[in-house]
């Protein structure tokens, strides 16, 4: 990176609108996942692991939610990590898997979209954004082979079609469109089970938020790596909705009400779950 001297020629060269491509030429060491690959499989339990993310569509948008726990082996590495981010004004990205690489990947992805928008003066299509995330993810494949896997979930509002859409990924960068709802991460088996029963076509935004929180609650119930809502420390999941009005993070006091109502409903009749 240059200090205050003249802009290097590469900056002035006409070419791609992709920040990741520019970074790969100018400062490849800054790309997430471009670390030298080693043969041993030592790093996995040391690196914090981020867990469950869910997303579901509702009438006029999509909601994404992630729990707040990161684990390192059997230890809780963080109680308040955030794993759901605004990718741009009309999309959200959640990460599960190796936390450090995942957070960096999300940051690069945000910048990639913003960079394109500033240079081209227009937004990428939702499919374009989803494909871009797949390409970025593929660069992490060597580390994924050693156990530092990142699996993002991408959801956004399609401005052309006027609906919310969800995309899931595999560690090789494969991109799959999901319908209705999806989840990734260690607790996703339980969360997806819950979503199957709770999701209905034509949900309203507030109901969708409730369903997302309940799915995470079920995941935390059975998966030790997923954190449930913490009323003592007042730590709630990160829940965001994306609609034609843009990305909106659901504020904590709204989530507190949702969680209180959920716990009350589940305590009824001594169900204790």
């Amino acid at each position: 990176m240059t200090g205050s001297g003249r802009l290097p020629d590469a900056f002035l060269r006409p070419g791609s609108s992709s920040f990741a491509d520019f970074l790969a030429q100018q400062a490849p060491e800054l790309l997430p996942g471009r670390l030298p690959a080693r043969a041993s499989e030592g790093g996995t339990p040391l690196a914090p692991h981020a867990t469950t993310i869910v997303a579901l569509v509702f009438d006029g948008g999509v909601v994404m939610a992630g729990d707040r726990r990161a684990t390192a082996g059997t230890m809780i590495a963080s109680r308040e990590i955030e794993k759901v981010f605004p990718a741009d004004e009309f999309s959200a990205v959640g990460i599960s898997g190796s936390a450090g690489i995942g957070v960096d990947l999300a940051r690069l992805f945000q910048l990639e979209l913003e960079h394109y928008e500033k240079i081209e003066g227009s937004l990428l299509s939702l499919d374009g954004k989803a494909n871009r995330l797949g390409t970025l993810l593929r660069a992490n494949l060597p580390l994924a082979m050693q156990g530092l896997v990142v699996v993002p979930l991408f959801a956004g509002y399609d401005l052309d079609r006027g609906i919310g859409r969800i995309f899931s990924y595999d560690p090789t960068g494969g991109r799959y469109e999901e319908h209705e709802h999806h989840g990734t991460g260690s607790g996703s088996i339980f969360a997806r089970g819950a979503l199957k029963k709770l999701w209905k076509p034509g949900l309203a935004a507030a109901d969708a938020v409730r369903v997302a929180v309940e799915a995470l609650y079920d995941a935390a119930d059975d998966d030790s790596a997923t954190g449930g809502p913490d009323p003592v420390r007042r730590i709630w999941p990160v829940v965001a909705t994306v609609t034609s009005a843009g990305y909106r993070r659901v504020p904590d006091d709204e989530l507190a009400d949702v969680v209180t109502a959920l716990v009350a409903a589940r305590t009824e009749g001594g169900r204790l779950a």
Partner: protein
Amino acid sequence: MTMPFYVSPEQLMKDRADFARKGIARGRSVVVLAFEGGILFATENPSRALHKISEIYDRIAFAAVGKYNEFENLRVAGVRYADLRGYSYDRKDVTARGLANAYAQTLGTVFTTESKPLEVELVVAEVGATSAEDQIYRLSYDGSVADERGHVVMGGQAEQLAARLAEGWSEGLGLAAALRLATTTLGGVGTDGGLLAAGSERTIEPAQLEVAVLDRTRQRRAFRRLQGAALTAATAESTAGQTPSDTPSDTTTATDTTTEGQA
């Protein structure tokens, strides 16, 4: 074999400067002025796609006059510079000063070493938390940098228009008043490029204007284009004179500036 004529360095630099100045004066002016809520950029530009004003980073914007291909190249370089810097360090570490320096070095090197200077003039502006922290840098074709206070006109009949703008400008203008001042200043030049007398300026249709603001109140990305219905409404409000809706924002401004003045 013929001997090349001797050209003194003074003459060489003067020729290059004249060449660049002529190119820059050919186009329409861009007006940049600070107002209470941030920094306003305006120019007469019928194109919706080829911008003279654009976003560089969260709080930083760019305006240019001269040759489109040359300043577009510099703009893209600026976006790359800012994004790379913000990604390597932190978003807070991207400053207009750093970018202005990088541009100045680039323009200066091209001016002295290449066969043709860049026929461009730029403004790099950063909006701060208060109007006292706003920064406006003006960069010339030869790499010279000027740290401007409050207002800048560049391109076209820049000198004459700058004098008029300076007369009308005061600290703590509201958005409507600032937009009115900007459009009157731009209207000081006729369609043939000749200067019109003060008071008989031409009115410019909103569709012919490119207007953007760095809005101090916006959370992260402060840059916002005023176009379509929003611009029509804003210009209607500004041409209506001292409308009542103008007054509340002006009142808050007045108190703000007094407290700043005392500090």
